[in-house]
């Protein structure tokens, strides 16, 4: 009887695992508000881009299927340009994630892939990366004194591919 109980317990434990643990997406460093300030230009040239690479994220897809990371933004009355790129710094064993080129963040945009092919598996589904933001403005775009700052709420989503 005790053997039967043991076998059933093992079956039950295995079965309950089909409701997977929650996937995780977290800031490891940074994550708070960032301000990118464009303040320099060579005489006769366009303003110099401002960058920030102080935000590091961690993901654990844990979806059981290939997963991806997408980005979108909300920025009402946007006047200047903002880009983001995820530079993967580590990813799970046996995995070969696909990094994507820099994505332009435009108010109202659809989700854009910044990382794909996060393969399932306890080792391959995790990784870390650096978010590199780049702000750019042309002379013709004017300045914040005239237009005000652009404020983006940038959202990253981890989901099944």
């Amino acid at each position, binding site marked *: 009887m005790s053997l039967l109980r043991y076998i059933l317990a093992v079956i039950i434990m295995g079965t309950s695992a089909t409701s997977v643990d929650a996937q995780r997406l977290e800031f490891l460093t940074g994550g708070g508000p960032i301000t990118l300030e464009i303040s320099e230009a060579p005489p006769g040239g366009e303003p110099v881009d401002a960058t920030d690479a102080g935000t590091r994220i961690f993901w654990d897809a844990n979806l059981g299927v290939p997963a991806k990371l997408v980005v979108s933004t909300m920025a009402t009355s946007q006047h200047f340009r*903002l880009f983001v790129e995820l530079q993967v710094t580590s990813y799970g064993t046996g995995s070969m994630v696909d990094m994507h080129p820099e994505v332009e963040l435009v108010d109202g945009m659809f989700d854009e892939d910044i990382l794909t092919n996060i393969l399932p598996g306890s080792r391959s589904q995790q990784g870390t990366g650096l978010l590199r933001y780049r702000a750019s403005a042309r002379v013709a775009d004017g300045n914040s004194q005239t237009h005000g700052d*652009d404020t983006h709420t940038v959202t990253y989503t981890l989901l099944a591919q």
Partner: protein
Amino acid sequence: MVHPQRYKTVGLAAWALSLFSACVVALLGLSPSAWAQTPPPLPDAIPLAGNQVSLSQTVTVRVLEINRIAISGDVLIPIAEAEAGTPLSPVTHSGSTYALTVNGSDKKIVGSLDTEFPAGMELSVELTPPPGATATRRILSSDPVDLVKGVNLIAATNLGITYTGHADITVAPTGTAGISRRVTFTLTSN
């Protein structure tokens, strides 16, 4: 690619199996502590469709007002030619250029000398205006004078600077060293 509908079907089956298993546990009198530990994840666990997690960050882009101007090299204007019985001829130099970047509106360029020339000498200047702006030829002094007005949202290089030097007959020869003055161009609000 797996169709989302398939996730739902399999997910439902898993849920039903869990329910059945729970009933079996209850019937056999297994203590909850015997199985309520963290289950080992199955490598092929199938998620419910729509599982996702999000993270947001606020990013502000601020562009400061930028006003930059630069001019090319020093200029030598030798005033030496005159025909007998006539005043010295003005000499024009037009090899210099300037560049500017303005990401604001309604700016102007003013020009001035660090100190006045001796009596009988004068230096005037005319700048080629960037597109959309207007320029005036002016005699320079230690008081700033408007040279270009209406500068808006522009990045431009190789804009011409034309100097004209003039000395009347009362000015004593200066020798090869000449008389140096520093000309300052300032980009400012109108």
